[in-house]
């Protein structure tokens, strides 16, 4: 488990980036926490720098949108989805569990 930050450091509408083997972006959508790969599958933009729109984030560079729940990309130029990761909250701390095994949606 990778520690991200205290829960109060990630208010709704905000995103943060944590270093892992591949950097991970964590989002707070109206109190729900989501984690996906931080690096856009198109080029090297950080999705934590992107624009949150409901349950999707728009890449800050060329505007591909990724669904935070599934990692799916909605439109060009990105063609591949990002991976989703599990988020765990313990004692007011946010953690991510990188790249869960193929167990389906959490």
């Amino acid at each position, binding site marked *: 488990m990778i520690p991200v930050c205290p829960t109060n450091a990630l208010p709704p509408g905000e995103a943060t980036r944590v270093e892992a083997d591949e950097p991970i972006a964590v989002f707070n959508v109206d109190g729900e926490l989501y984690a996906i790969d931080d690096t856009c599958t198109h*080029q090297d933009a950080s999705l934590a*720098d992107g624009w949150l729109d409901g349950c999707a984030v728009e890449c*800050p560079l060329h505007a591909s949108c990724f669904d935070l729940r599934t990692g799916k990309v909605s439109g*060009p*130029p990105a063609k591949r989805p990002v991976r989703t990761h599990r988020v765990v909250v313990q004692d007011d701390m946010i953690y991510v569990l990188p790249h869960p095994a193929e167990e389906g949606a959490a």
Partner: protein
Amino acid sequence: MSATVAVIGASLAGLSAARALRARSYEGRIVVVGDEVHAPYDRPPLSKEFLAGTASLEDIALGAPDDEALGLEWRLGTRAVGLDRHTRSVVLDDGSELRADGVVLATGARARRLPGSDGLDGVHVLRSLDDAIALREDLASARRLVVIGAGFIGAEVASTARALGLEVTVVETQPVPLAGPLGADMGAVCAGLHADRGTRLLVGTGVAGLVGTGRVQAVELTDGTRLPADVVVVGIGAVPNTEWLADSGVALGNGVLTDARGATNLPGVVAVGDCAAAWSPAAERHVRIEHWTNALEQPATAAATLLGATTPAPAPPPYFWSDQYGARIQFAGARRDGDVTRVVEGSCAERSFLVVYERDGHPVAVLAMNQPRLFTRWRRQLRSAVPSAS
């Protein structure tokens, strides 16, 4: 009803139009005609990652797996040579005619060439995949590159070639590069990247001609200076591909003239992307935008128009980016001379900043270098602020 839509031009705007038609539940035939033999690919990497050799052809393909489901008929390697307004047929260079109920003009633009440079080896323009492959091959064995024109494409080629280890000189006629899109002060800041990385930039100097027989050897400037060159890249702008429409009756200016919703003067014919000069209510004139995001977004409106919708067109502030020497430049909005620039974050000297252009105290455009997060927020803000400001 078996309707047919002909999309002429198989690149970003054409593909986006085809996708938008399907997204609007158009179920008829869609025929996409493109004169290049390649399936649609992305042009921005041609001066950046693809030229550098770090992106492959597969990486820059525009097609996505889902596109199979669009059921498009491709006519690649085929050029449209005329449009008959009465039968709404597109005449193709193989002699056939394509009868259509709707036509999307998406023929883009081509690189402007330097007069007198034809037939000289080592002289390149950069617009197509074939151009990029030829340039990449030529750069591999070259030592000295001269780039004519310090616009975005010229600057990006200079940056990529510099990273490949070439000696690079950029020649610009204007006193300040990029003054048109960015204004003189910010154009100068961005052009400062050249010197940071050891590229020589010569401004306010015209090119008198190219020297060499068979292969280029030097670029001669109007002041008599000769710049030795193994390779020359001409980056002096682009011309819309509209000549084939000259006899069609479609209204032409600097591109195919359309209203704000992409409609031309001919019923059932719309135009999108780099070939289209759309009416801008804010600017009160036709504006031909030559940027990627426009070619992606505009077709959604034009496809709706073709299918009979008349809802007002969204007018997001124009957006473009450029990557040079590892710096990420982003710009959104509509700037004019006289707008006042204000640094909101960072500093120009540190090559990390966000600058807002203001008119009568209101933000009208925003420029950022290496500030994608903040830029995205400002770009969003402009999206909601701009329409009401006009």
